[in-house]
């Protein structure tokens, strides 16, 4: 790709990158920083981009690494927030009766794979992730979107593995409920 064409293509990707970074970092300054670093890295590494993958996929891959670097730099601030979050009372406990069994059964989701092809479903999933409390959203995205190991996440956030598993569990419970309410519930006609 020619330099000018690359510049232009990267410029067009910038708003998308910024949106992703803001969602992840929840801090505009950090988001601007990682996007700038990503664009510089993309320009510097342009010869490595062989055009074998889509430009966007390649640049988002760089962005993920930059976001992880940012997590490492700010792990102290994050861990304080995480500890506060972990102490928060959980409304989903209401799902279970005192004996640990369900108050209401979990319905099947039919054929959820078909939802994956729908842009609207992915928007709802994104909205559900955005609605998570900040520290739950962050740890969940580190695990499921940045695909980091739990060991690595615990270390970066300065939390114990147990705490890490509990937070991921809480994030998943909330997301399940959010998708149930906003997508799958409708499909079931409830």
């Amino acid at each position: 790709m020619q330099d000018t064409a690359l510049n232009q293509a990267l410029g067009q990707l910038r708003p998308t990158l910024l949106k992703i970074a803001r969602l992840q970092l929840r801090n505009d300054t950090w988001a601007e920083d990682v996007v700038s670093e990503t664009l510089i890295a993309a320009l510097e590494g342009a010869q490595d981009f062989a055009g074998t993958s889509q430009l966007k996929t390649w640049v988002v891959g760089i962005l993920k690494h930059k976001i992880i670097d940012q997590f490492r730099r700010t792990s102290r601030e994050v861990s304080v927030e995480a500890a506060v979050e972990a102490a928060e009372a959980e409304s989903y406990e209401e799902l279970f009766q005192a004996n640990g069994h369900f108050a209401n059964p979990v319905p099947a989701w039919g054929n959820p794979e078909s939802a994956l092809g729908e842009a609207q479903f992915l928007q709802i999933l994104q909205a559900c992730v955005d609605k998570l409390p900040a520290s739950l959203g962050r740890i969940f995205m580190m695990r499921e979107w940045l695909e980091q190991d739990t060991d690595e996440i615990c270390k970066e956030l300065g939390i114990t593995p147990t705490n890490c598993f509990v937070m991921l569990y809480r994030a998943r419970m909330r997301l399940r409920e959010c998708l149930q309410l906003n997508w799958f519930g409708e499909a079931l006609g409830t």
Partner: protein
Amino acid sequence: MSGLPLRLSCKEAHRLVSEELDRALPLGERLRVRMHLLACGSCTHFKQQMQFLRSAMRRLGE
């Protein structure tokens, strides 16, 4: 051993189904979960939904 009862409640099974996505469970826990899922539709659905959630997350930002 994990200190878990032989027969898990749904709440315990849910927690372990989630945890299994983040670490390899010890054999005892894995068998308890499997036993529970054989008998429990709700937790089986939950497990399917957790696996679906993982694959759906890989699609975001693409």
